[in-house]
């Protein structure tokens, strides 16, 4: 049988007592950093080119980031597109999403949006049509629009922040929801602030 090396046994060694968190942060009593996940919105300005969405989504899935929604659309500049990601991560995880995204070649600029950012989501949902009046009333309550109404189904559209959409879906549940299509959130920074750093210089007034 092969032999090992000489030296003190692990138990005979002085082994430090410190620890790190799973994020590799030193745990010390004074700054016992606990990193809870929270939900946040990240906006990425990207080159509008084929494959960019798959590059971004591939990165997100490969790195196992917890992604809630991902939307993409054009901007004022035909050469760029905006990708909006809603993720649920700890602050170090959020920094990682940002820096990893920034590394992708077609990604121009990335920013985590402030809490006051303007965020919107659209849902199209189809309910059973037995109680059309009630459906209309609820739709109005949520400032929605009826897109299609037939004897058996009614399809409505609601726009709003995530909470409002969730509430609306709950409210429509009483009629029996047949199908739902949600877009996921899209967002812009509030007021005069540009959404990402690279926005202003690429702005084309339309």
């Amino acid at each position: 049988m092969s032999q090992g090396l000489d030296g003190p046994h692990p138990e005979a060694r002085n082994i430090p007592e410190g620890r790190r968190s799973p994020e590799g942060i030193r745990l010390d009593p004074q700054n016992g950093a606990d990193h809870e996940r929270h939900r946040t919105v990240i906006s990425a300005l990207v080159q509008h080119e084929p494959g960019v969405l798959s590059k971004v989504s591939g990165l997100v899935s490969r790195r196992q980031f917890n992604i809630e929604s991902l939307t993409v659309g054009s901007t004022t500049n035909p050469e760029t597109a905006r990708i909006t990601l809603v993720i649920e991560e700890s602050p170090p995880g959020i920094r990682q999403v940002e820096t990893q995204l920034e590394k992708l070649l077609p990604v121009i600029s990335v920013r985590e949006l402030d809490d006051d950012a303007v965020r919107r989501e659209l849902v199209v949902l189809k309910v059973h049509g037995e109680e059309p009046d009630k459906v209309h009333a609820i739709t109005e309550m949520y400032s929605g629009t009826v897109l299609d109404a037939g004897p058996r189904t009614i399809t409505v559209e609601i726009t709003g922040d995530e909470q409002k959409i969730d509430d609306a879906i709950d409210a429509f549940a009483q009629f029996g929801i047949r199908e739902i299509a949600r877009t996921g959130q899209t967002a812009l920074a509030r007021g005069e602030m540009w959404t990402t750093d690279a926005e202003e210089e690429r702005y084309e007034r339309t």
Partner: protein
Amino acid sequence: MSDHVSTVHTDEQTTTTTEAQSDEGASPVTNGAEAVVAALKNAGVEHLFGVQGGAIMPVYDALHAKQEQLRHVTMAHEQGAAHAADAYGQLTGEPGVCMATSGPGATNLTTGLADADMDSDPVIALTGQVPTDLVGHDAFQETDTVGVTRPVTKANYFASDAETVGDMVGEAYTLAREGRPGPTLVDLPKDVTNGTTDSVPVSPTTPEYHDIPETAAASAVENAVRALSNARKPLILSGGGVIKGDASEELRAFAIEHRIPVVTTMPGIGSFPEDHELALEWAGMHGTGYANMAISHCDCLLAIGTRFDDRLTGGIETFAPEAEIIHVDIDASEISKNVHADYPLIGDASRVIEQLQAAMDEEPAADQWREQCQTWKEAYPMTYATPEDEPLKPQFVVEAMDELTPEDTIVTTGVGQHQMWAAQYWTYTEPNTWISSHGLGTMGYGLPAAIGAKVAAPDRDVVCFDGDGSLLMTIQELSVAVREGLDITVIVLNNEAVGMVRQWQDAFFDRRRMASEYQWVPDFATLAEAFGAKGFTVREYEAVPDTLEAARAYDGPSVVDAFIDPEENVYPMVASGGNNAEFALSEDQL
């Protein structure tokens, strides 16, 4: 634009185009393939490694006229081409070029690209593709190469027209080497390479928003230096990025002037001379006991160019648990990815070390610590038993070859126990002397890497330590070494097993040796002869030095089949996900 390209007045064209182009030596092009070759020539490429095939034929055809300047090494397998380009890229600092045809050629390259990606090695791959109008139709030898390689390349491109393909190759080349190096790929549909164009590629540029930081922010440097100066147990962790960033010299000067002990990562081997008294060699799963003790006990860790791989850190909770971490890296996304950085310094390794050097006027008061590190060196020496009546110990073979060869000898390896012995028992004193597959751990890496290394550095000795299992994965490349007349020495540490697996089975699977012992292995010496190389066999201690010397002296590729103790294991060992300070020195400590 391409009306005149069919004219035969090539000489005239040469003059006009050369004048029009700022790039020296730019030659006229008539089609996409020539533009690709012109881009490579612009970039100063001298060697390419590849395998021919249908979809890449136009590019090879364009190479035909340029064989003098761009030497193509025909490999036996595309994986070999990628590994050869990888080693070549590491040694020259410029991207190694590999080429393959579409479909199976491209998929065969993929392992090599993934390997280069994990180790941040500069490589550019050019793959043929079926004509654009057949893409997506499951045409003969079609693979979605861009899709397949996306997760394992730094960037990849699908060429869509002959006009721009040259510039695309130039950009891919530049990207492969700039900042944190890595593999890039350009997929070349046959109609694009055959397509007419006269656009000569210009000097490549990369998008301005991807500017690479050179130096770290001054205030960040100041804070880091304060932390380091105040440390009582400072330690430097020198990673592969120090070698890639050409920062070994700066690192040595800094560590020696401030008398800070140095451990390296495995890819960082050679960045600091292992025979220096401050050297603790490499840390991690099979690193030295003293390196792992130092990592576990330090109070300030200056980590440079490392991604804190789990083979290095063991369990994160117990990694350098009492240390503030200063992390120098050119890639911002490495900061706090695995281990939180208290002081991130983003920038080029050599520039940032210069900044640290300039800002640091107080040496840490660390006499006691240095002494402690010496004590660990004495407590956990790297030794092995050599009873003469037992089969050869692999460590002895590694040490014997080290003694025979010059300091700047390049060692390449496969993956397994032999790789660890080659890393442990060879004394590395120079950067770019240790070329191995770290992040991906690719068996079969050693021989093609030795080929790439010898092409890159024909004047240096190249030794490949290989396992019998690893060598069998790419042994066909021996034909290339013979054909190209490459003077490399392959030493097979033959345990008739995939030894590393056998070691784990013994330790963690109750000795159930499932599929890890070979009932039979070929006679590697005879096999070498069949390939046209020189074969040697060695079984006894006394014969080792002479056999190794004969193999080294042989002018051409040689293979030494060294029959080693099949039961020999690699120690120290930190159990996967374990505590670095609890490394085992024998199986019963696991």
